[in-house]
């Protein structure tokens, strides 16, 4: 039985295909259209999913949309009614969109699906799941747990912003919900907006900025903005926020509380901005920890699954893990709305169709390392490279890993394009840019020469799973880069008083450990453990690098530039390679050296193609 899940029309549209409960393929539309956070119907992602399964559109038994538009419309109307006449500016923006398009979503979906097969009775095959149920399903069903508590937290779905569910076997039941407008995701987004970053994409920058600051506004936030109950449930004081009625996240009362207007995007970051980031991060962690402890007490379960945009806050996830309320936690790598497509398909299979669920292994989950996207055979890669006029050499696997390890050890930045593309926002060694984590310059080189992004943001390490304990204070797998832990004491370089007093990026530039490129100012790191079972090629590269240098850690950042979706095809990779300061590109077994390539010319400035995120 083939079930296709779709998320679309809000942000991060995606398609995911399952066959008898097993995930066959999943991809975000932005990777194909090259439009970051593309919200359009995922035509290309759908085509890819079908081709991966080798089936035609008419062979899909069900198509499931990840949320229920009418419930969302109900929330909108009741919200406008509650605040009328204050919300008119928002109303006049929202209602035309709904009356023209979103209210007729079923028709729109059928019309889009008809483009793939005009003769298929799509409306009979179409189902709609609930937004948070889709998130919960995406977290529970692929997890390696027979039973688990499931916590989902995001901006907002239909009504729900936070939900607690319990999964047992093939059943998944939502027990509790917190409803709009009280939302942890929107609270974090409000501060993202206030700190001058883009809502819905800059949240991870706020998280990256937090370790530089002191949480001196934490009490102010708790006193005025959010009332946190002992079980973690919370209420926001809506008089400080504008998102129910206006077109911004915060209002003047909010500005007055913090004593200044929002920071203008792209202006210099001050210590105050860092303190704001640290404060909201602390409050977020406080809420998440209380929620998790409450859930543990209420359900008595040993396992916890997390999903929803807030579950991408890996610093909070790390604290949940260390808190020890749950023995094991598992986080859906595509925790944002793209993952809703997968959850929608899984919930239709297990809940709607009531199919049995078998947990294959307690070690491996059902996400296959999140490598669920397109794959290119070596001959296909070479054909594409030739048509681009690229110059490359082909190595055997053993030579390739040795060569790449050598280049990395020399301090070269490497584009690493191998196997299937990742599903979710993180590059996990399928479409990655790699560097030497031991190099004190690597952080700024990658930020400024390759990624063209703010230099305050640290990079994440990939480490051989078997060497994890020797480098980081983490004892469990973290294959999806969703847990933050500290570099172990013996690898740290203590900062003297003068260095401690440094501020912001200057502090980041002080080597603080044996792997400075991936160590944040508070010695933390966002860890990816690399497993031979899910990514043998990346594992082999790390092994070769370790044999050469004694260090099993590499810098791993996504293969893109700022504002660009992660590369999908060899052509995307070559384009990105030629535009940036990358020294080498490895696609499958093909190695490309920058100095051997023909001159790269573009008519326009490519930087203008990508809006800053």
């Amino acid at each position, binding site marked *: 039985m083939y079930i296709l899940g779709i998320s679309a029309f809000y942000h991060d549209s995606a398609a995911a295909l399952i066959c008898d409960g097993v995930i066959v393929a999943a991809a975000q539309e932005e990777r194909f259209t090259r439009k970051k956070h593309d919200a359009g119907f995922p035509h290309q992602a759908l085509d890819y999913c079908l081709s991966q399964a080798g089936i035609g559109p008419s062979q899909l038994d069900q198509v499931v949309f990840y949320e229920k538009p009418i419930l969302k419309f109900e929330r909108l109307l009741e919200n406008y009614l509650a605040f009328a006449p204050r919300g008119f500016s928002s109303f006049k923006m929202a209602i*035309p969109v709904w009356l023209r398009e979103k209210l007729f979503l079923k028709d729109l979906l059928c019309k889009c699906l008809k483009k793939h097969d005009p003769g298929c009775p799509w409306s009979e095959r179409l189902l709609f799941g609930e937004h948070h149920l889709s998130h919960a399903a995406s977290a529970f069903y692929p997890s390696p747990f027979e039973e688990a508590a499931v916590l989902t937290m995001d901006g907002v779905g239909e009504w729900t912003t936070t939900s607690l569910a319990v999964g047992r076997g093939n059943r998944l039941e939502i027990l509790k919900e917190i409803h709009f407008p009280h939302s942890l995701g929107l609270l974090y987004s409000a501060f993202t907006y206030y700190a001058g970053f883009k809502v819905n994409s800059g949240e991870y920058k706020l998280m990256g900025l937090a370790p530089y600051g002191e949480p001196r506004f934490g009490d102010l936030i708790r006193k005025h903005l959010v009332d946190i109950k002992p079980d973690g449930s919370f209420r926001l004081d809506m008089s400080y926020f504008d998102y129910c009625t206006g077109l911004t996240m915060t209002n003047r009362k909010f500005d007055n509380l913090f004593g200044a207007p929002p920071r203008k995007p792209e202006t210099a970051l001050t210590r105050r901005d860092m303190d704001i980031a640290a404060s909201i991060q602390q409050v977020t962690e406080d809420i998440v920890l209380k929620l998790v402890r409450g859930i543990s007490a209420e359900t008595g379960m040993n396992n916890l699954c997390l999903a929803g945009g807030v579950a991408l806050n890996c610093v909070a996830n790390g604290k949940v893990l260390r808190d020890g309320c749950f023995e094991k936690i598992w986080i859906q790598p595509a925790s944002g709305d793209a993952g809703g497509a997968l959850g929608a398909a899984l919930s239709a299979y297990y809940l709607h169709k009531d199919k049995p669920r078998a947990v294959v292994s307690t070690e491996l989950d059902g996400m296959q390392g999140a490598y669920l996207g397109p794959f290119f055979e070596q001959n296909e890669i070479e054909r594409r490279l030739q048509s681009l006029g690229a110059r490359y050499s082909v190595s055997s696997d053993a030579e390739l890993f040795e060569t790449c390890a050598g280049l990395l050890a020399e301090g070269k930045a490497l584009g690493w394009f191998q196997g299937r593309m990742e599903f979710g926002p993180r590059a996990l060694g399928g479409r990655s840019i790699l560097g030497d984590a031991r190099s004190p310059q690597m952080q700024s080189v990658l930020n400024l020469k390759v990624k063209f992004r703010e230099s305050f943001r640290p990079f994440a390490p990939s480490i051989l799973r078997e060497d994890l304990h020797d480098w980081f204070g983490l004892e469990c797998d973290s294959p999806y880069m969703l847990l933050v832990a500290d570099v172990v004491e013996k690898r740290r370089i203590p900062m003297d008083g003068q260095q401690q007093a440094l501020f912001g990026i200057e502090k980041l530039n002080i080597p603080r450990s044996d792997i400075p490129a991936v160590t944040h100012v508070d010695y933390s790191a966002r860890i990816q453990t690399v497993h031979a079972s899910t990514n043998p090629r990346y594992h082999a590269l790390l092994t070769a690098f370790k044999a050469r240098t004694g260090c099993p850690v590499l810098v791993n950042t996504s293969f893109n530039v700022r504002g660009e979706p992660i590369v999908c095809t060899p052509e995307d990779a070559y384009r990105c390679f030629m535009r940036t300061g990358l020294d080498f590109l490895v696609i499958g077994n093909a190695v490309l050296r920058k100095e051997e390539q023909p001159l790269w010319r573009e008519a326009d400035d490519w930087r203008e193609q990508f809006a800053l995120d």
Partner: protein
Amino acid sequence: MDLLKEFWLFLRERKKFWLLPIIITMLLLGLILVFAQGTAVAPFIYTLF
């Protein structure tokens, strides 16, 4: 027609008949906005709608 049927089912399921006159008023107001406005531009903030 499908949509109207679904809306009716929804009102019945959620026992929200009191919403009906408000919905009609808001939809009328919305329709005026649609005709008064050239394009429906999706707003830039979070996906609240």
